[in-house]
C-alpha cells in the first residue's frame, strides 16, 4: 500500500506545484471574483451614473372621455420608474414632435373610454421590460378610475384586491412538493452539477490519459512498472489526479465565496440558507466521485493504449462524446425530468451521475430506485476499473500504432494471467 501513496503524492504534488496549475487557478479565481462583481466594476468606470437616477419621461396624451383624469393620475404617480407628464399643450402629433426633439423620451396616447381603454406607446430603445411596466401603470390607473365610477368604497376595494393565502402541501406525510422556490434552487444546482461533471470528465479525464501516455512515450513507464504493480499505479494516479481536481474545485468555491463577500450582498446567506437541502449536496458529491471513477478508469485505460501523447486526444474522443451526450440530455431533461427516456437512460452508468441527479433534484425518485441505480453505478465503476486495470497492465508495455480493437486485444494478451 505504501507504493500507492507514494504514487498519489507524486502525481498530485507534481501537478499542484507546477507553475501552470498555480497560475491557471489564480487566474480563474480572479475571473470568477471579477465576474461576480462586474456590476460594481462597470459602474465605477461609467460617469453617467446620474442618467440612471433620472427616470425616463413619458408625455401622456389623454384623449379619453375622462377629461384628462387618467393623465393626471399617471402624472401624480410618485412610484414606478417613469416620470409621467400630462401633456395638455397639444395633440399627439405635437407630442411626438417634442419627443423627437428629446424633450420627452416617450409618448403615451390613451384613447376610448376607461372601460375599453386603448393605449399606444411611442418610443425607441432596447429595454423590452419597459412596455410591460408602462402597461401595468396604465392598468392600475384604469382600475382605480373604473372602481371609482362604480362607486365602490375602500372596504369593497380591499376585498377585491386582498391576496389569496396559497399553501402547497404534500400528499403523504414524508412527501415533498416542488414549490417554485425549491424548483429554481434544484434547477440551478442540477445545472451546476451537470456542468461540473462535464468539466471534470473533460479536464481530469484528459489529464489522466495524458499523464499515462506521457509516461509511456518518455519510456519511464517500464521502469515504474518494474517497481510498482501497474494496477496499484493506475489507482494511485486516479486518486492523485482526483485530489488535484478537488483542490481545483475547492479553489473555485473559495473564489465564489470571496466574490460574494466583496459584493457584500445577502445573496450568499440566501443561497447558503436556501440550500438547506443538504441531502442534494451529499448526492452531488457521491455522484461526482463515482462518475469520476467511471470516466477516470476509462481514461487511464485509453491512455495506456496509445504510445505517444499526441494520440491522446484521438483515444479519449469516445469518452468526450459520452460526456457530451450526457450533458445535453441533462440540459434537455431539466424541463422534462419525468420523461421515460431520461428515466431509462439514468440506469446507464455513463449517464447516471448527471441524469440521476437531475431526477433526484427535479422530481421525486423513490428511495429504492436511488439505491438501485447508485448500486448499479458502484458495481459498474468496479467492473470498468477491473477491466481498465487489465488493459492498463498490458497496455503500458505495448508500443506501436494506436487502434482500439487491436490495441485492446493485444493488451489483454500481454496481461494474460497464465495458469
Amino acid at each position, binding site marked *: 500500500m505504501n507504493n500507492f501513496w507514494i504514487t498519489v503524492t507524486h502525481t498530485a504534488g507534481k501537478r499542484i506545484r507546477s507553475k501552470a496549475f498555480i497560475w491557471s487557478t489564480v487566474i480563474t479565481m480572479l475571473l470568477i471574483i471579477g465576474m461576480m462583481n462586474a456590476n460594481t466594476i462597470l459602474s465605477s468606470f461609467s460617469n453617467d451614473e446620474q442618467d440612471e437616477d433620472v427616470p425616463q419621461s413619458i408625455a401622456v396624451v389623454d384623449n379619453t372621455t375622462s377629461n384628462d383624469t387618467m393623465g393626471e393620475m399617471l402624472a401624480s404617480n410618485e412610484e414606478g420608474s417613469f416620470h409621467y407628464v400630462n401633456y395638455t399643450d397639444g395633440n399627439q402629433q405635437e407630442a411626438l414632435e417634442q419627443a423627437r426633439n428629446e424633450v420627452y423620451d416617450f409618448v403615451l396616447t390613451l384613447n376610448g373610454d376607461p372601460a375599453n381603454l386603448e393605449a399606444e406607446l411611442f418610443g425607441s430603445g432596447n429595454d423590452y421590460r419597459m412596455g410591460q411596466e408602462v402597461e401595468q401603470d396604465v392598468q392600475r390607473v384604469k382600475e382605480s378610475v373604473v372602481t371609482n365610477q362604480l362607486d365602490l368604497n375602500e372596504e369593497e376595494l380591499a376585498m377585491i384586491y386582498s391576496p389569496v393565502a396559497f399553501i402547497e402541501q404534500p400528499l403523504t406525510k414524508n412527501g415533498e412538493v416542488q414549490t417554485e422556490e425549491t424548483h429554481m434552487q434544484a434547477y440551478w444546482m442540477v445545472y451546476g452539477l451537470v456542468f461540473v461533471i462535464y468539466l471534470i470528465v473533460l479536464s481530469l479525464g484528459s489529464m489522466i490519459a495524458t499523464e499515462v501516455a506521457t509516461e509511456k512515450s518518455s519510456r*519511464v513507464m*517500464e*521502469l515504474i512498472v518494474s517497481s510498482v504493480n501497474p494496477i496499484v499505479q493506475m489507482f494511485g494516479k486516479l486518486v492523485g489526479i482526483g485530489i488535484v481536481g478537488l483542490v481545483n474545485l475547492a479553489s473555485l468555491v473559495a473564489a465564489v465565496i470571496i466574490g460574494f463577500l466583496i459584493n457584500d450582498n445577502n445573496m450568499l446567506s440566501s443561497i447558503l440558507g436556501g440550500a438547506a437541502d443538504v441531502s442534494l449536496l451529499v448526492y452531488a458529491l457521491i455522484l461526482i466521485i463515482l462518475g469520476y471513477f467511471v470516466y477516470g478508469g476509462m481514461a487511464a485505460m485509453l491512455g495506456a493504449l496509445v504510445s505517444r501523447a499526441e494520440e491522446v486526444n484521438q483515444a479519449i474522443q469516445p469518452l468526450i462524446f459520452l460526456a457530451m451526450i450526457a450533458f445535453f440530455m441533462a440540459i434537455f431533461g431539466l424541463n422534462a425530468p419525468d420523461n421515460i427516456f431520461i428515466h431509462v437512460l439514468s440506469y446507464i452508468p455513463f449517464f447516471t451521475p448527471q441524469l440521476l441527479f437531475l431526477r433526484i433534484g427535479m422530481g421525486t425518485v423513490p428511495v429504492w430506485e436511488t439505491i438501485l441505480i447508485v448500486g448499479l453505478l458502484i458495481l459498474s465503476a468496479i467492473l470498468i476499473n477491473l477491466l481498465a486495470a487489465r488493459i492498463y497492465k498490458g497496455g503500458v508495455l505495448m508500443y506501436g500504432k494506436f487502434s482500439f480493437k487491436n490495441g485492446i486485444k493485444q493488451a489483454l494478451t500481454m496481461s494474460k494471467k497464465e495458469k
Partner: protein
Amino acid sequence: MTLVIHDVKKEFGRHKAVDGITLTVEKGSMFGMLGANGAGKTTTFRMILGLLDPTEGYVTWGGSPLSYKRTHLVGYLPEERGLYPKLTVKEQLLYLMRLKGMKKSDVIGAMREWLERFRVTEYENKKVEELSKGNQQKIQFIASVLHRPELLILDEPFSGLDPVNTDMLKEAIQDLQKMGTTIVFSSHQMRNVEELCEDLIMLKRGRAVLQGNLRDIKRSYGMKNVIIQAGYNLEFLNSIHGVMNVEKTNGGAIVSVENEKAAEDLFIAIAETGYVRKFEVEEPSLHDIFVDKAGGDDNE
C-alpha cells in the same frame, strides 16, 4: 541466491516470443544474453521481473518468483531508456527509489556518491531534458543500481555511449559484480560480452542456439579461422573439402574452415605448394559465432 529459468515459454496469441529457455545464473556471476532484435531477450527480462507471466515454465530468484513484494531486490535498466523529462535528477531518483522502499536520506547519500563517480555532480538539480543523451544514460544507470539490488538486469547498457563512458560504465558494472551483485545483461556489441561474461546464452527466434561457458563455447566451436601469409596465390584452397571461405588479405588470406580436420588438410596442401611465413589457427570471435548462429549482423 540463484536465478533459475526453467523451460520458460511465452506466447502472444500465436506468436512464440520465447520458446523453451532453461538457464541458471549463480550468485555473483555475470551472464550475457545475446540475440538479434526480436530474438526474445526483452520478453525474457520482463518475465524475470514478473512484468509478464510465462505461458509455461517458471522463473525464480532464490527459490521463489519475483513478485512486487520483492521488487527492491532487483535493478532494471530497460532497453528503451526513459526518465521524466520535466523532473530534476534529484526528484527523479527520489521518486523511483522511494518506490523501491528506500528512505529519502539514504537516497540522497547514495545518489551523491554515484553522481561523483560518474563525474556529473553538477546535474543534481538540472532537469533531465537538459542533459545530453550520454548523461541521461548515466542517470538511468544510477536509477537501476542506487538501491543496491541483489540482481541487476541490464538491457543493452552500452548502446549510445562514447568509448570513455563505456569504459566508465564497464568498470562500475565490474565493481558491482565484485560486491556480489548478480548481473544479467544483453548486448549487441560482442566485444563487451567477451570482456565481461563468463557464461552466455544466444537466442534466435525465442530458442537457445548456443549456451554455456564462453571459453568452452569458443574452444568447442567447430568453425575456425586460419591466417596464412604466403607469397603466392592462395585461391586454390577453395577446392579443399571443409573450406568455407577464402578472404584475400595483404600478402596472404584468412581462410574459414569448418573444423580442425579441414585446417590440417589445409596445412598439408600449403606445405606441398611452397614456403609460408605464417600459418595460425585462430579461435573464432564471438562476433563470428553470432553471425553464424544468430544469422544477420546487428552491430549497433
